[in-house]
């Protein structure tokens, strides 16, 4: 190949066009998100006033799947029981834990066997026993054979008494008014079938009594990068799609669903890795195919905080798992793409996810590789290579900066000037290595998905430093 070779020129232009299209798409989502946040800011006066319950809010079942969570489960359940909402129940599903999860729950909440006429709407691994707390009448624990997170959620749905259910990760730290915020889309729209809230990084924050009391910054650079990543992913990634009813994912860490609809589409797919996204994509596909009007909305309020991996190995495993989950969710719902009644979800969101989220890692890595090799071999001028890096990094920084701007417009949780400066530094630094590393991990995830293999619970060593503060 020579510098003037048409093939080199075509590939160079394609790589550049891909990066510009990818970031341009995200920029558009940014503007949509800004519109939504502006509207939300106009209603801030209502949020600031004390909230009054009428007892007419739809009751909610909180489902907490737990697998080997002995370190954090008691504190998590205690904080969930303290959520401020008019009527709710908490159902913990012990998915055949091999540690003391069930024993901890029994001791902490005085569990006794409960003779439940268990209703099987969704098939699951066998349920061994159901317990109820003698101290908290609205707490039940399902003890079942191991079947995975999706299977546990299905068991929780079977036992849920209320029309809405909220799937929560056992290690999530919720805002006290999180249910109240997440349920809002359901209150005024009978077609609402699911709502998801913003998840933020809890590392470095202060937690007391199971609730977040002070927002701080993590010390680990890995966790720090994720703070900016989460801002980007939630504040415009999801909010932007939500504005046009094209949101394809609701985080498993905290999402609210209409039970009847979830059961009608078959519940969570057992053995699935990305069960949260797969369910949402399937809901889009099936509800659209059946011509049922529906809405899926994103609530930008920071309602849930989660512990992020603080070392490279765990982060890598998490990203590989996420990419496999994404691959599963998209590949098992091909029918949505360009389907007759696909709407925004089928004609815009699904192809966007295929092109930029699913295959993005492959194209990005090949792009970087090609440009580097082409420059090294003298196929392209160093100016062309420099322009490529300048555009890729420049647009990356711009997107993250927009994420920071949206945070500043809406919630400005990171109030100290030092925190803002640190985030600004991360916005720039993450483009020099971290994002490329992420693309590489996603590529590995894609490869592992293509190779096949059984899904397992995502194992992460919880540091749960916030637990020490529980009073």
């Amino acid at each position: 190949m020579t510098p003037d070779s048409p093939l080199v020129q075509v590939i160079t232009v394609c790589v550049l066009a891909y990066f510009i299209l990818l970031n341009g798409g995200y920029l558009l989502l940014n503007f949509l998100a800004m519109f939504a946040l502006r509207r939300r800011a106009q209603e801030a006066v209502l949020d600031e006033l004390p909230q009054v319950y009428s007892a007419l809010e739809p009751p909610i079942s909180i489902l907490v799947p737990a697998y080997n969570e002995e370190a954090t489960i008691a504190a998590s359940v205690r904080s969930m029981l303290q959520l401020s909402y008019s009527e709710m129940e908490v159902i913990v599903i012990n998915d055949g834990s091999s540690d003391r999860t069930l024993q901890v729950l029994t001791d902490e909440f005085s569990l006794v066997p409960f003779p439940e006429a268990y209703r099987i709407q969704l098939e699951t691994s066998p349920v061994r026993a159901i317990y109820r707390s003698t101290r908290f009448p609205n707490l039940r624990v399902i003890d079942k054979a191991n079947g995975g997170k999706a299977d546990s959620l299905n068991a929780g749905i079977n036992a849920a008494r209320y029309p809405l259910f909220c799937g929560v990760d056992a290690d999530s730290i919720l805002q006290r008014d999180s249910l109240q915020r997440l349920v809002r889309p359901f209150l005024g729209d009978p077609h609402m079938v699911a709502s998801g809230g913003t998840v933020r990084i809890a590392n470095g924050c202060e937690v007391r009594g199971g609730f977040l009391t002070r927002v701080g910054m993590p010390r680990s650079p890995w966790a720090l990068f994720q703070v900016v990543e989460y801002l980007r992913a939630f504040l415009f990634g999801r909010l932007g799609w939500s504005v046009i009813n094209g949101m394809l994912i609701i985080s498993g860490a905290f999402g609210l669903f209409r039970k009847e609809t979830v059961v009608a589409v078959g519940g969570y797919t057992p053995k699935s890795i990305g069960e949260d996204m797969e369910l949402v994509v399937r809901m889009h596909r099936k509800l659209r195919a059946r011509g049922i009007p529906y809405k899926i909305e994103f609530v930008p309020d920071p309602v849930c905080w989660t512990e992020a991996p603080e070392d490279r190995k765990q982060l890598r495993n998490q990203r590989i798992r996420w990419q496999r989950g994404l691959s599963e969710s998209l590949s098992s719902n091909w029918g949505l793409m360009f389907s007759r009644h696909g709407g925004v979800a089928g004609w815009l969101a699904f192809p966007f996810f295929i092109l930029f989220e699913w295959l993005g890692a492959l194209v990005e890595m090949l792009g970087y590789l090609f440009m580097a090799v082409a420059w090294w071999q003298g196929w392209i001028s160093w100016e062309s290579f420099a322009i490529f890096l300048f555009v890729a990094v420049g647009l990356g920084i711009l997107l993250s900066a927009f994420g920071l701007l949206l945070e500043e417009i809406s919630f400005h949780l990171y109030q100290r000037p030092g925190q803002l400066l640190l985030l600004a530094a991360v916005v720039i630094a993450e483009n020099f290595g971290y994002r490329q590393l992420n693309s590489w991990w996603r590529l590995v995830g894609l490869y592992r998905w293509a190779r096949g293999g059984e899904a397992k619970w995502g194992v992460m060593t919880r540091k749960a430093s916030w637990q020490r503060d529980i009073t």
Partner: protein
Amino acid sequence: MESILDFRLPANIYLQAAFWAGISALGLTLLVGLQIIALRMSMRRTQRREQALTLKWRPLLNAAIAGEELGNLPELPWRDRVLFIKLWLHLQQAVRGEASEGLNAIARRLGCDEHMRKLLVSGNRAERLLATLALGHMRDRESWPALARAVHAADSASSVHALWALVQTDAARAAYEMAPLLLRRDDWPLSQLGNILQNARSEWQPVLAEALSRTSPEELPPALRLVAALRIDLPQAQLQAYLDSPHVDVVLAALRLARSPHVIGQVRRHLESTDWRIRLQAVRALGELGDRSDVARLRTLLSDPEWWVRYRAAQALLALPFLTEAELAQLRDSSDRYAADMLTQVLAEKEAA
């Protein structure tokens, strides 16, 4: 290796476009950065103003709540009015009766009523919402036409709060003018309507019943569900007509309103419906209305194919005040497995509660 100083823009037009895309991204990033700094500075300024305002006005507002006579009031600069009203609203939400009147008096003395009326008409959306809340607390009759227009707006948050303000100002007039609209708006959160009409049921009950009678069959089910959720009773003849309706959704909604012994015959008939949702609602109603003769009916439904019907039948049996625990235990022991399991569960739930 070439030096950075040797950089020359390539002749290729696509590469040139990419270069300028990068330059634009850089420029936009700088703008975003400046915007963040400006927002942060503006937020700090507002916070400082808020603190100063609270320090100055909180004691005076507290005195107004306590019913103390206030002499000359300090001047309230124009730019602080919105901040003042926010503070004032916070306090209004927590007080009732004379204390609320005390706050209204101070707001009127400061000319806030006039300012809020202006904002209601010509403010931006956030200001209109603020003005709606403030004028509702002030029960400002002068704002009635503007608020009545706002109730018809498509914007759910603005319109439902305008309805609240009207109900606060004159519940009877609001009922008369807004009842048909209330039955049609399915975007108004039920929980919020519950709060709004909490203290105005007597004014709304007859008007809503009358408005229901003029509602089309398509709009009737959600309207009836709303009336049921608000626990508003309908005249007996009207309810009986709905219970006899050929439309499943109307019967379902009407069964939620069946709280009078006069409709027990119709409720019992619906226990035999082929639609499990109707059986479910009928069972639930029978839990409130049933007598001894209904025990056998409910016992049959303990073996219903639908889990929820069995569950509600067990709950209904437990709710009957004349059934003793011994009778319930006997019922459980003499029933089939489905019924026995369900009764066992519901008895355990009752024990746990």
